[in-house]
């Protein structure tokens, strides 16, 4: 069992990983990444994966990650807007959750104040039911919802989050008033999952990755996914194919601070674009069930504006804004 080389390399590599100062690539820039969430969550993982891929591709010499967590990113955003202003080598990771949090928390700052660089990834959502459920298709689910929404309790993440928003959008398309919905928020996908496995609720909505293994094991039935087109290896229609005209990605992207120069902005877009098109990035996305949905610069700015309007409308219907 003793393998000296493996022992030495893995130990050395482990300690090397604790230091963020590789000696190679002297001319590559240093960047700073601001994560408006605590370590460990989706944005933090995105930041650390960006750092990892940029360094392995030798596009940067190193990076420093700062976490300021709280309230869906609305605690960190004012700091990024005010204290990081004009820092051309900085990026903030944010996403759809922050759009919702800004609206729901009536935050003083919003995403129009920062400089859009690129939308990177999205996680599509899944509508699932317990294996024993009478609902065989998404149409069955919508029919039951139309009949009496109070009899169809649906589990998902926190109130006003992406899962709740998708449920609101589905109900709206079906003509069911959002105020009558019976949504049961859980602190995270895991807790919602246990409510589904214990047959406590009629259906569940969360990121596909939260449910994928239970679907494979046959404990949950996947009715539909919220992506724009069918996904390879997933045997389920999109919501649109199932007759529900809704598409939703829980997207994540990066922003530069306000007041950066045009050259810095262009350089940053190029850096992020090169990274997003690398094989290393593709591998990471595959491992983490992220769909790469790259969109940069002005197109990204327009997308953020449109999404803010859509989310604002649905949160109003749900009584959260």
């Amino acid at each position: 069992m003793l393998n000296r080389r493996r022992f030495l390399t893995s130990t050395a590599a482990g300690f090397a990983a604790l230091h963020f100062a590789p000696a190679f690539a002297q001319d590559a820039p240093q960047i700073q990444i601001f994560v408006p969430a605590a370590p460990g969550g989706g944005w933090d993982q995105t930041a650390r994966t960006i750092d990892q891929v940029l360094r392995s591709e030798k596009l940067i010499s190193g990076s420093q990650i700062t976490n300021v967590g709280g309230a869906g990113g609305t605690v960190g955003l004012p700091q990024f807007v005010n204290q990081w202003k004009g820092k051309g080598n900085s990026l903030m990771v944010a996403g759809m959750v922050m759009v919702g949090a800004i609206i729901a928390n009536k935050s003083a700052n919003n995403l129009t104040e920062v400089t859009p660089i690129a939308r990177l990834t999205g996680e599509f959502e899944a509508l699932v039911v317990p294996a024993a459920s009478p609902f065989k298709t998404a149409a069955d689910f919508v029919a039951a919802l139309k009949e009496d929404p109070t009899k169809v309790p649906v589990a998902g993440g926190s109130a006003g989050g992406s899962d709740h928003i998708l449920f609101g959008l589905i109900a709206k398309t079906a003509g069911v008033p959002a105020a009558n919905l019976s949504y049961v928020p859980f602190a995270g996908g895991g807790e919602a999952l246990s409510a589904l496995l214990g047959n406590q609720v009629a259906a569940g909505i969360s990121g596909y990755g939260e449910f994928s293994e239970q679907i494979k094991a046959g404990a949950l039935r996947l009715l539909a996914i919220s992506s724009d087109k069918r996904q390879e290896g997933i045997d389920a229609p999109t919501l649109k194919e199932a007759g529900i005209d809704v598409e939703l990605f829980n997207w994540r992207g990066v922003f530069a601070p306000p007041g950066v120069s045009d050259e810095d902005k262009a350089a940053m877009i190029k850096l992020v674009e090169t990274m997003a098109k690398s094989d290393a990035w593709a591998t990471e996305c595959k491992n983490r069930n992220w769909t790469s949905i790259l969109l940069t610069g002005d197109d990204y700015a327009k997308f953020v504006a449109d999404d803010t309007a859509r989310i604002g409308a649905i949160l109003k219907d749900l009584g959260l804004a």
Partner: protein
Amino acid sequence: MDTLGYLAHGFAVAFTPTNLLWCLVGTTLGTAIGVLPGLGPALTIALLLPITYQVAPEASFILFAGIYYGAMYGGSTTSILLNTPGESATIVTALEGNRMARSGRGGAALATSAIGSFVAGTLGTLGVAFLAPIVVKFALAFGPAEYFSLMVLAFITVSAVLGSSSVRGLTSLFVGFVIGMIGVDLQTGQPRFTFGMGELLDGVDVIIVAVGLFAVGETLYMASRRYAGKDEIVPLKGSLYMTAAEWARSWKPWLRGAAIGFPIGAMPAGGAEIPTFLSYAIEKKLSKHREEFGTVGAIEGVAGPEAANNASAAGVLVPMLTLGLPTSATAAIMLSAFQSYGINPGPLLLTTQANLVWGLIASLFIANVILVILNLPLIGLWVRLLKIPAPQLYAGILVFATVGTYGISQSPTDLVILYLLGAAGFLMRRFDFPTAPVIIGMILGPLAETQFRRAMTIANGDWTVFYRHPLSLTLLTLAFIGLVGPHIWAWIEHRRTRGPEHVPGDA
């Protein structure tokens, strides 16, 4: 292969020199971060996630599991010696442990918590290896209605820690409810008691409240007394470790604590705090030395909760490994580490990743052994802390509490809250209000509220769910017995002893 075969295979994986080294690094690091208030295992593992890019999956999970178990050991040290809980699961330990330290039995308190942690951690890990499929079935049967009934039962049993005056105890409990409600309401997304401050939207961390009320409040109280320091250096009494009598009083609480902690830890919304409350209440009820509780410190009140929190740490791994369900912040981050390796944790994990899972389970046994070896000799060193004269010691505690709190989220707001709570803790101490019920209210209150509202949402407003579900009904019945049982018993006793006096009038 059967379970034993898998386990033997797991030990073969864990016993490679590399993996043993990772286990040692993990347990040492875990003990250290457990000692610091604020820096918990979840945050530490999150910060170490990048190593998953570099080392084999077995190695990193062995490291993470070592950190997780180590934190449970380390958290009790500061609770006992400095009344400053390092982890939310060791808040209860401070109640009796710190009293023991002040009456010269700090070494025994540390020893019973280390050995109890070892016993319960080993039993819990055996539970993970052999009982996981059964326990997980039981845990999934718990829905919102059952959780609410469990909270009712917990409220009844923890009345034991309310102290001598129930009015004061209940006042403290309700203060805890209010603090627990601060932040965005999970059910509706609306902020409560935040006064428009963004920093309060996520609520107040229970560690800040515990450190503020216990450590800062205590420090201010000590400073306010005129003769502070004169009588504070307590000489160690008797053996550094445990006496025979203390062993005899500890072993049953260890076993009971493990029996309470493991199943509750395995429940998706169980956590590590509730079993420590329940264990404390039970030990207080069963103890033959009830007069020591809250005065000189009862060793049962340390042994039971410490065993319970370690067994619950093992319990948390059950749904994580069998179903891919993370039931604590630490487990959630460990699951995200699985994804770095392209492994999707789920019901198939035990079969598809047998090497990894059984290597992990085997390393937990090893981690437990390393931790007890690491912690017992340290006791001699730790108790010397108590020989520091009071002014210096309390100044040190204040610095330690402040740095630790700042470490939670680098937020100056947290420090303001810490000192406001410290002032509140001082006033409570001055006017004789117990502080422990604040913490209990803060943890149990919001849980009970959330589960109640979830149960009502799912049942569409039908109250009968709480007694239509057999499990829920059982828990409520137990709570009812706990509430009226002692009174009925006392009444019967009363009748029996006073019986003869009434006889003449009856005829």
